[in-house]
């Protein structure tokens, strides 16, 4: 232990009303610390009703000034609650805030134990641990890095568009990168939006146009981010602009090429596989930008070497078969990921027959089916393309809330099911059944919509559908799809014949979400959604400074929430931009070059690529701005050359000794 340092430590025990004092003998604890921990340098130990109150803080500040404390230990609640409070107090009193330690004797002692004697003993150990640790603390300064005012937004769905507009309108530049030929995302495919049933396109397209024409927004569609380096304030990003084979300078978006193209292809992106497009195509009428793209795999010219119909008919000569992919380098200060979701593949639930039974549709297929701009111009018909269904069954939770597939609730399906029910009623007058496990309509005006659909006469069956089959057991089942389900409220198995089945396929993370996360240095939950910094208090930030998430990339959510998150993420970015520079927690690792043997073991360990090997000196070095302070390299360095501020070996070893200090003491009666 290190008395030699002659630190002057103050220990402050909080009663937290009776929260702590109820189970821990706080007075005794303070007295004990004052006497038994003298040798560690404790010069004063006090207890007080509420340390976090202004009076409590003043008490500490006063001691720092008058008793010349060089270290402070506050035995109170979890550091996650009040560490900042007491650090600020120390700062005000002129003591470096990182020389303050919190000993959690509420969450870890008084609230989880009952026996007062035992609890007090444990509290002593915890305090002793904190005291011996704080002595090893060193003064730290926050690290400041400048912020590049430009922002990269990945994903041009409604969340990404919203983020882009917020930042652009605030007067800062945005690069909006979208994988598909047009922005708009899933929302552009929908017909109506719940609960107000206003037309999706009507509310979305104005935003798309605004984003497409905004002076502060550089739109990069048919593009993907291929490389990311740097750190908050100064990221370097490489974007691949895939060849469109259309010269955007010359193209007017007249769509003649699309019209003349002889090659018809099933469109399984925008039309959800329910309709067709050409080999050169504009995904949909209101696409932004309006330029078409050529689908190389299906283009007759690229396959056979002849055709070029598009080129012949293009009035401006914009078709360019020799166009190559371009790589564009961008420098940005912040990044927002709004990469959205993939739809669960309903074929995996084989007992629902999607892919086997023609008249089983997915929710996205139905969106296109009911969309006036869709393949059937809004006519709700069976797979044969003409027959109107007389009865329709809507099945909820397909691939959601199911350990065999996705364990979580996809959030939107209940409301979507209600919306579908309404549309089917309105357009076909068919009988509609909704099969649900639980109706989840918790949001403004959502349950009212449920009521409305009930009024319209939709039939609700509480039960997870067991199977959809075309095997009739009786005459009235012949030629129908039979939905077999236990009506759990009636307690009976029912077989309900319908003409059409709609599966509410769940939302799931993008197939490449993990790879994207790794590329941007953020993590995914076990389900595969991007992990937010704090599930409640910091839902759009990530563990990586300068990288934010919005929309379904963070988890299933509806349009209002996606828009709100898009805006929220922008607010966080703007806050960073306006600060012009950012302060980073000084919990970092650093390499002592003299000790470093250049073994490079640490190089591969860092998930943030913060460790680089300096060939000239044959040593490894850590970029403090990239380092997130996890300390893995510190633990791994065989030469002990890497040390981590805030959590150094010395501090932790000292804390271990402190925690076990009691065991070394002679047992008292």
């Amino acid at each position, binding site marked *: 232990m290190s008395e030699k340092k002659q630190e002057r430590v103050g220990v402050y025990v909080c009663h937290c009303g009776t929260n702590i004092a109820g189970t821990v003998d706080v007075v005794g604890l303070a007295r004990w610390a004052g006497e038994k921990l003298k040798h560690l340098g404790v010069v004063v130990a006090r207890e007080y009703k509420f340390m976090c109150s202004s009076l409590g803080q003043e008490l500490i500040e006063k001691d720092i000034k008058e008793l010349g404390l060089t270290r402070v230990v506050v035995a109170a609640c979890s550091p996650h609650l009040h560490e900042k409070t007491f650090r600020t107090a120390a700062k005000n009193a002129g003591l470096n805030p990182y020389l303050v330690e919190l000993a959690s004797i509420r969450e870890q002692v008084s609230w989880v134990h009952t026996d007062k004697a035992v609890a007090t003993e444990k509290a002593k150990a915890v305090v002793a641990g904190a005291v011996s640790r704080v002595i090893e603390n060193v003064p730290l300064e926050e690290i400041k890095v400048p912020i590049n005012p430009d922002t990269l937004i990945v994903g041009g769905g409604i969340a990404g568009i919203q983020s882009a507009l917020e930042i652009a309108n605030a007067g800062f530049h945005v690069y909006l990168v979208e994988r598909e030929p047009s922005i708009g995302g899933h929302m552009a495919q929908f017909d109506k939006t719940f609960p107000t049933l206003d037309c999706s396109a009507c509310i979305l397209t104005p935003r798309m146009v605004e984003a497409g024409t905004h002076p502060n927004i550089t739109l990069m569609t048919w593009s993907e981010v291929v490389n990311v380096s740097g750190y908050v304030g100064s990221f370097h990003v490489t974007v691949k602009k895939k060849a469109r084979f259309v010269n955007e300078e010359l193209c007017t978006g007249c769509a003649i090429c699309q019209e003349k193209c002889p090659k018809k292809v*099933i469109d399984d992106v925008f039309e959800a596989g329910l309709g067709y497009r050409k080999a050169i195509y504009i995904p949909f009428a209101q696409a932004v930008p309006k330029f078409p793209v050529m689908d190389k795999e299906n283009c007759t010219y690229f396959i056979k070497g002849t055709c070029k119909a598009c080129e012949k008919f293009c009035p401006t000569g914009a078709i360019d078969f020799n166009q190559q992919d371009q790589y564009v380098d961008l420098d940005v200060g912040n990044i927002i990921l709004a990469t959205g979701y993939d739809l669960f593949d309903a074929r995996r639930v084989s007992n629902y027959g999607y892919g*086997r039974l*023609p008249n089983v549709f997915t929710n996205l297929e139905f969106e296109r089916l009911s969309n006036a701009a869709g*393949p059937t111009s809004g006519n709700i018909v069976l797979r044969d393309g003409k027959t109107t269904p007389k009865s329709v069954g809507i099945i909820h939770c397909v691939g959601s809330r199911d350990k065999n597939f996705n364990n979580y609730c996809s959030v939107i399906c209940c409301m979507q099911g209600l919306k579908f029910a309404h549309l089917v009623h309105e357009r076909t007058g068919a009988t509609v059944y909704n099969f649900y496990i639980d109706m989840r309509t918790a949001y403004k005006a959502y349950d009212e919509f449920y009521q409305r659909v009930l009024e319209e006469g939709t039939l609700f069956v509480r039960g997870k559908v067991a199977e959809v089959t075309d095997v009739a057991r009786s005459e009235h089942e012949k030629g129908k799809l039979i939905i077999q389900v236990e009506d759990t409220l009636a307690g009976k198995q029912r077989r309900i014949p319908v003409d059409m089945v709609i599966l509410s396929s769940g939302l799931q993370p993008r197939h490449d979400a993990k790879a994207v996360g790794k590329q941007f240095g953020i993590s995914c939950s076990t389900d595969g959604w991007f992990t937010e910094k704090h599930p409640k208090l910091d839902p759009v930030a990530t563990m990586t400074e300068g990288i934010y998430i919005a929309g379904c990339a963070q988890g299933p959510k509806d349009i209002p929430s996606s828009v709100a998150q898009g805006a929220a993420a922008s607010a966080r970015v703007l806050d960073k931009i306006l600060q012009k520079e950012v302060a980073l927690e000084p919990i970092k690792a650093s390499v002592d070059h003299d000790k470093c043997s250049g073994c490079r073991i640490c190089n591969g360990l860092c998930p943030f690529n913060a460790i680089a090997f300096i060939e000239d000196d044959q040593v490894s070095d850590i970029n403090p701005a990239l380092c997130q302070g996890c300390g893995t390299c510190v633990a791994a360095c065989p030469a002990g050359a890497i040390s981590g501020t805030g959590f150094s070996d010395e501090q932790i070893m000292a804390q271990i000794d402190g925690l076990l200090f009691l065991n070394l003491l002679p047992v008292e009666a």
Partner: protein
Amino acid sequence: MNKYLLYPGCSMESSAKAYMQSLNAILEPLDVQLEEIEDWNCCGATEYLGINLVPAYSLIARNLALATKQMNGTRTVVAPCSACYLNLAKADYYMRERPALDVKVNEALAAGGLQYKPGTLDVRHLIDVLVYDVGLDAIKEKVSRPLTGLKVAPYMGCMLPRPDYKHRWSDHEHPTELNDLLLALGAEVIDYPLTTSCCGGHMTQIGPETAFELIRRLVAGADERGAHLMATVCPMCQLNLDAYQGEMNGFFGTEYHMPVLFFTQLMGLAFGKDPDELGIGLELVSSRGALANIGVKVTQPESAGPRRKKEEGLPMPPRLNKRQAEKEAVR
């Protein structure tokens, strides 16, 4: 040469001896060697489990324990009976999932001087090894008398594709293994959505009315879809559908005549074997009429392909093979 340990199961020597005969007949051409487990005992079917847990699993485990003694060159036990296959696989699986069970069962085995470490053996069903080890191509090669024109309803039954602890099958509800095999034999496989519906299991013995209805669904389904006969992979299924079909007809006043053969018998026929050698004729619902179709040159049969791929109308997504999907799955 593929070598396996064989757990025949009781019915293979009695009600399903046609299965055994036909199996023996196709081993040689397929270059498969089966070594019967010495002195194996009954797996308890679905009955023992319902009486007393530990004895039930000890009964099963004795066979596994015995098998481990013969593991020269192979650790795979093949069971031609779905119920046996499931029981053996289940014991192995649960003894691992539930250490408490492992301990108790081994304690019991010890009384007989035996022991079994879960995971030692790989329990698989006959059709599994034929399709995935021997392979459809190898089988195709051996076909000398394609079953052209024979309309077969592929019936997999319950206990084969479910619960499927080891994810061996292409699907739980609509597996393709039997279809593919029958197609390889040149048969015309009808679309048979009931392929994994239940045959009634032991209900034929204890709750006939329940069983008859299940049998009716299966037979009617095959009949309506124009099948000449049903192909099965399980003695219990065969027994229920074949032996009780008459009684079922009596019960409902129907007149179905749906022969039920083991897939091995059809393989034998395709390999040019003599029907008697394959135990054909042992079935109670005669397959004579159905088999008359074989060899008879019929005009190009109208495709039994599922009605999904319509030219006009709206396009459909392609079918999905879970086994493939799982391999390619990112997560």
